[in-house]
């Protein structure tokens, strides 16, 4: 099996796992409300962009299309969305945990 085939197989596996993450994230997001739900939406969007990024890489490695500029855009967008999602989670956790607000630390206890 040549190198390209291996690359394609790995890219397909990553794509599948990304979509699994979206599936789970969607399930979680639908069960949440408020800022947590917003964080979930941004997380799903980030993963969707990441899956588009994967598709672009797949098209590239399979020789169908070369759209490297799109690859950079999706990569950047994914990170931006992930930052927004994390920020929303952080805000939500600060609302829950007063300590975190006072000493600027996030503490999530195992008992939760």
């Amino acid at each position, binding site marked *: 099996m040549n190198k390209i085939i291996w690359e394609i197989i790995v890219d397909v596996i990553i794509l599948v796992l990304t979509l699994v993450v979206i*599936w789970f994230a*969607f399930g979680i997001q639908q069960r949440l409300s*408020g800022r947590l739900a917003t964080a979930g939406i941004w997380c799903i969007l980030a993963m969707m962009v990441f899956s588009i990024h994967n598709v672009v890489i797949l098209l590239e490695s399979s020789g169908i299309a070369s759209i490297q500029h799109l690859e950079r855009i999706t990569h950047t967008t994914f990170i931006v969305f992930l930052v927004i999602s994390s920020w929303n989670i952080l805000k939500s956790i600060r609302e829950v945990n007063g300590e975190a607000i006072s000493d600027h630390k996030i503490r999530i206890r195992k008992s939760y």
Partner: protein
Amino acid sequence: MKKENKTLIIIFFILVCLILIFSPGLRNITGKFLVSSKAVYEKASVSISVFDDIPPKVIIYYPLNNTYNYKNNIYLYYSASDQGSGIDQIWYNLDNGINISLTGNTTFNVTDEGSHTLYIFANDSFGVLNNTESITLFINTSTGDEVVLDYGGTTTNFDSLNKTEQETISNMTLEYINYGKILFNEIINITDDGKDVGSNPRKVINLSAYTDISFNRILINTTELPQLNKSATLRLYNLSFTNPRILRNGLLCPSAICTKISYAGGALVFNATSFSEYSAEETPVVPGGGGGGGTGAVVKKKVSSFRVDKNLIKIMLKQGETKKEFLEIENTGETELDISINLKDLKEFIIFPGGVSEYSFKLKPGEKQTVQLIFNIDKDQEPDVYSGRIVIKGDDLQTFVTTIIEVESEKPIFDIEVELLKEFKEIAPGEELFAEIMLYNPKGTGLIDVEVDYNIMDIGGKVIAKEHETVAVETKTSFVKDFTIPDSTKAGKYIFYAKVTYNGLVGSSSFLFDIVEKPHVEMPIQIEKYFYVLYIIAAIIAFFSILMFYQYWQLRKLSRSVRKVTAEDIIKAKNKIQGR
């Protein structure tokens, strides 16, 4: 197993099946059906309809997606084929203008300068249309003539010169960075060296074919490029001589023509007043004689050489006709030569005065002799083309005169003329040769079917390609024929010969052309395309979209009985655990 899981598994299998069905490798499934039947009393009629849904294949050979500096008589060469029901109609238009039917290669005009798109359409007998073939050509009449060259380094950029600039090029340079350089010391008007391409007003200046800068050799064919026969400074690089001297056509270059400027680091620089073939050799040195052991003296080596005024004789004779041709042989060397001329395979058609087939004589240095060749064709000689070489020997030297004899019937009814489109004068094996064929019936005795034979053969008469066809002619017809040169053809001179036969009377015409080595083209690495990946991506995304939708649908049902978790719920849970 839960109901939802069963549904998911079924969806998964459906998707896998879809991937397999649409996978390119599984598309062409062939099978055999064994049909057996018993005889029945009733008659049955079976009709089979074959439908051809593949559009005809159209290729536009010329013009190309290029800039042209002329507007009229632009050649249109194309081919159209359909493997199914056959071609029904072919037509073209320019810039989506009026459709014009095509019956063969033709020419067209454009009215304006600028970009023009030529579309060719073809449909087959089932009406399946190919409307995807087009080329975009750009007309700019101020563009300079096309210059064909393969030099680098400081070579003049001819592409950037317009027509006027091409007429006054100063410091024109041709350089091959490893081998040498020509820097012309005079203003050059290169457009005068352009050659017409067929009947087009377009000219091509082929520096690549008629100049050569290679190791220890600079050559300009001044017959083909007379404008370059000017004084120039020449450089020969990477020479390994200690003390080189300049040679012109293999002989020591006279000081009136060549002036050595310098020799350093293997680069010989010299001026030449006119052009020919220049090279260099080591200046011969012999040890000094007598006492004292001097540094040695230069000994002039006597050179033998001769020149023949022709290297090709092409002659057309009718059955029973006799014609004379002359060859002028000049001793250009410094020694007396015994010249002998051997007619080899052409003895049947050529004789020397006195009826002999071999002729010899002596030539002193600088002497010339004109030799008469009598071409004599027998009345019963079959009309055809006969070729061979006349071998001229002078001591150890030998040269050939390629000779082509076309024999026609005494009184042919039809006349034929063939012309190679100059653009295709040098063809590589595997490429196509385009020849313009013109058929005339001077008597104009109505529409007559004539037999036309085409042969492409080497100088030895070995046929490499041939074709036969019947053409209807009234008074005059012309068309372009294309022939593919077989891949295995060796480089060399070849003859294209066409003869028209009507009632056993033959008219013929031919031309000589060169088949050159196939240029080695470094092909880019072919990236294999795995189109089935598209199907896999689509299937995966479809599968997960269905899962998501299923999940959403489930959650909608749940939302009636279960409320969503909020941050407040987490605070409450936290307080509960802490016992507040």
